[in-house]
């Protein structure tokens, strides 16, 4: 049984983009099993489905009449994860003088069974050479001279076993007489070890030849029943400086090559792949000058330390020669590569907003949301809602929610799963999030929206997009016209994408921020823009977009929180070269934008805010107009409070403006919030009994020099309280008051300017 509804049918889909302008097109790729047909509909999303309840807005999706709507024949489209390097073949190369392949290898999961290091073997003709690690961790080769020669291929295992998480230099030569010789030398991890050398020899009886197909590293290429080429026998670990010689290298020559290290060129090589070239791209360059250049597939991790990484630099741009390794994973996936099933031409008159493709088959349902942007010639509203697609990407297919021992403990609640969540167990090939580890335990650093994403949807728990639709529902209830743009658009277009708007409203959780987004929001605010940050844990961590693949991003965790930290060599993004980490660690704290920054989280119960004396300041009077309550948000759909889940507070040392008014602060958070502080800071607690509780969300307001202003709530849960009592409550009133003033063109004045 794969889901608890006892349904064998499953439908999954993704789109080629997360936003589209009116008049543009968006492609949907759909796969379906266990049903003959599926139904497709395009819907506009006005409110999420987050359960019944007197205070919960009803689910509102509007079915739209489009040519793609209707029944379609079900087609199953497989996903083949696993990263590798692919080099076009040369139609079978004869090797009258023999052949040698040399490389450095660092296996990270020997238990995965046979794993391919290098393959110039062609299954169809059974000709060529492949080097692999067998199920016992031993080096082996497959050799074949082609079925025409008789005898087909043979597989041979050496006695040389590789060690996990250690570098080894390997050379394997195949002589014209069929003798195969293995040479291996461990590369000491530190100066207190001596290298270990091993040799083995066996008689294969087959003369070497390169197969007519492509050369691959990190996987072998197979073909499925539908004729699709795909990786198989995928390797987990790092490979560095692969060299190919069209002759036999003897033991001395191999030892000499090993001794020169990965950064030195090798004279006379037929091919010499140097992965320190083009780390920011997907090329695999041949430094021999013979033109055996290739490409990486499925985004193996680049910008990782090689066997010679000295610790002298954490930026691969400084010492690329120490970053000549590529880390391959059997579960890497950059793009599911499905055929387009439906192409939607978005009519010119569709209003900007949140939409989705909705796919149903045999009781199963799957949504693929997207934003319709305002027309290219300008905005249609004074408010723009910024959909956090970078954060959705970082969290896409958050598998640890299901597989982690700790999920229930850190949430203080039983884990709640539905059938869409369980797709991650049924179809693990849909890949992981940047909060997950690969099967070999290394950190996932790349994520892609070009695959089915189970947690980007309008139904289910109050979380991410589903929660952000509560903000959409609030704007709809208020009758406030708004446009929607995504992080991807803001990163690409910069401040001009938001400049025409009077007010930008954030999502509930705009955590992952590219440099382009950070710059754009900062520039917008300097220019007099107004920002309603009605979320928590915002502007927290750097995210890097792939320069040529929209919807693909990278996260390198180099600092707090220490959970999921990447290995110490991986200080910089491969996509951009930028340093990775939290924006605090990068010197641009979220406090510089929103006035507040993340402090802790807890997922068991949310709390409330208590107003401060500053809320009576005349500058803040518009915020509390008609609100007499001292306690704000002691209710809500999200665990009964407006303050919680992830919360932010002020910090003058990190950039909270001196003139900011903290108009309310939360209090009385649960034990779980202590736990995260411990995990984050791991230091002795503040012992000054007069010090304010550090575990709090601060609600704050400040004016900016350009006539703009910022209002922040510093809490993910805030948007879960807006609909309480039919939007007649103090969180909705505060939000309404702020939005109304922020839409008033009258400039805000800096407090000093009045004197």
């Amino acid at each position, binding site marked *: 049984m794969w889901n608890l509804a006892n349904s064998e049918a499953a439908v999954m889909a993704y789109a080629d983009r997360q936003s589209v302008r009116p008049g543009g097109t968006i492609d949907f790729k759909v796969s379906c099993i266990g049903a003959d047909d599926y139904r497709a509909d395009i819907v506009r999303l006005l409110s999420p489905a*987050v359960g019944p309840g007197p205070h919960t807005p009803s689910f509102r999706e509007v079915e739209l009449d489009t040519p793609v709507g209707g029944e379609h024949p079900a087609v199953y489209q497989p996903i083949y994860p696993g990263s590798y390097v692919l080099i076009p073949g040369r139609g079978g190369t004869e090797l009258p003088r023999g052949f040698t392949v040399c490389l450095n290898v660092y296996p990270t999961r020997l238990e995965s069974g046979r794993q391919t290091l290098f393959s110039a073997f062609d299954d169809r003709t059974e000709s060529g050479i492949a080097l692999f690690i067998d199920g016992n961790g031993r080096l082996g080769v497959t050799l074949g001279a082609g079925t025409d020669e008789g005898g087909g291929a043979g597989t041979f295992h050496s006695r040389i076993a590789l060690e996990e998480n250690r570098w080894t230099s390997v050379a394997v030569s195949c002589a014209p007489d069929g003798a195969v010789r293995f040479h291996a030398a461990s590369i000491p991890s530190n100066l207190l070890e001596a290298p270990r050398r091993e040799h083995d020899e066996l008689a294969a009886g087959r003369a070497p030849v390169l197969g007519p197909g492509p050369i691959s590293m990190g996987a072998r290429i197979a073909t499925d029943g539908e004729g699709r080429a795909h990786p198989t026998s995928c390797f987990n670990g790092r490979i560095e400086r692969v060299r190919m010689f069209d002759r036999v290298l003897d033991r001395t020559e191999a030892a000499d090559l090993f001794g020169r290290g990965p950064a030195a060129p090798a004279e006379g090589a037929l091919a010499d792949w140097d992965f320190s070239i083009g780390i920011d791209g997907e090329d695999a360059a041949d430094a021999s000058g013979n033109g055996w250049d290739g490409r990486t597939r499925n985004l193996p991790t680049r910008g990782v330390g090689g066997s010679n990484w000295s610790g002298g630099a954490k930026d691969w741009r400084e010492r690329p020669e120490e970053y000549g390794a590529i880390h391959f994973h059997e579960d890497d996936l950059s793009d599911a590569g499905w055929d387009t099933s439906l192409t939607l031409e978005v009519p010119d008159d569709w209003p900007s907003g949140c939409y989705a493709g909705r796919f149903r088959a045999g009781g199963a349902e799957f949504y693929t949301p997207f934003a319709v942007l305002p027309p290219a010639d300008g905005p249609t509203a004074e408010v723009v809602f910024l959909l956090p697609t970078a954060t959705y990407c970082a969290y896409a297919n958050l598998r640890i929610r299901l597989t982690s*021992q*700790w999920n229930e*403990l850190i949430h203080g609640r039983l*884990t709640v799963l539905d059938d869409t969540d369980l797709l991650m167990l049924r179809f693990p090939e849909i890949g992981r999030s940047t909060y997950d580890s690969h099967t070999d335990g290394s950190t996932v650093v790349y994520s892609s929206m070009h695959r089915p994403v189970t947690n980007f949807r309008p139904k289910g728990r109050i979380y991410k997009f589903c929660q952000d639709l509560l903000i959409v529902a609030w704007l709809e209830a208020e009758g406030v016209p708004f446009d929607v743009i995504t992080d991807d658009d803001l990163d690409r277009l910069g401040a001009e994408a938001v400049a025409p708007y009077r007010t930008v409203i954030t999502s509930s959780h705009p955590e992952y921020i590219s440099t382009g987004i950070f710059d754009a929001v900062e520039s917008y605010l300097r220019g007099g823009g107004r920002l309603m940050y009605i979320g928590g844990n915002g502007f927290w961590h750097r995210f890097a977009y792939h320069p040529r693949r929209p919807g693909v991003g990278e996260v390198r965790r180099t600092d707090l929180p220490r959970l999921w930290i990447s290995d110490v060599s991986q200080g910089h993004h491969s996509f951009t070269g930028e340093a990775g980490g939290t924006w605090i660690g990068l010197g641009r704290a979220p406090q510089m934008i929103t006035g507040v920054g993340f402090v802790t989280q807890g997922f068991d119960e949310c709390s409330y805010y208590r107003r401060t004396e500053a809320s009576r300041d005349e500058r803040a009077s518009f915020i509390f107009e008609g609100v007499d309550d001292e306690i704000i948000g002691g209710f809500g759909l999200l665990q009964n409070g407006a303050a919680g889940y992830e919360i932010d507070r002020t910090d003058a040392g990190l950039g909270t403006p001196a003139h900011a008014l903290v108009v309310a602060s939360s209090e009385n958070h649960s*034990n779980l919030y202590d736990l995260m502080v411990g995990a984050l800071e791991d230091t002795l*607690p*503040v012992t000054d009994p007069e010090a304010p509780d550090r575990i709090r969300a601060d609600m704050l307001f400040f004016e900016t020099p350009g006539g703009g202003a910022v209002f922040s709530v510093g809490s993910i849960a805030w948007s879960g309280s807006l609909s309480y009592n039919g939007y007649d409550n103090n969180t909705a009133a505060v939000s309404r008051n702020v939005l109304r003033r922020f839409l008033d063109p009258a400039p805000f004045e800096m407090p000093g300017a009045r004197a």
Partner: protein
Amino acid sequence: MTKIRTASDAAGRLPPGIGAHRTDLAAEFRERPFGRHSPDLQALLDHMRGGPIHGKYFLWLADDHSRWVLARFSDSPPLTPQAIPDAPVFDDIEEAERYVFDRRWADLFGAEPEAS
């Protein structure tokens, strides 16, 4: 002084003094499954909740978003969802927490907590 807990504290051995006789902890949990707990109750909950993923309880959210069905993960790899025969169905998530608390209490101490 605030006691700062770290992840390494969690799910460790049950602290001394916590056993079947601490029906006060069961009563405290019954009264308030979510929110701030006493240090001893929190330690007991961390222990109960920090066990291996295999065999662990979870709640399956039925498709109308108003019912939670108790389920568990498989006892051994591969990790799969397992229905529980005649599984209890809850329309109040706090009741689900109380039910699982009692099951785990019984697993730890041999019998469900007595009312205190």
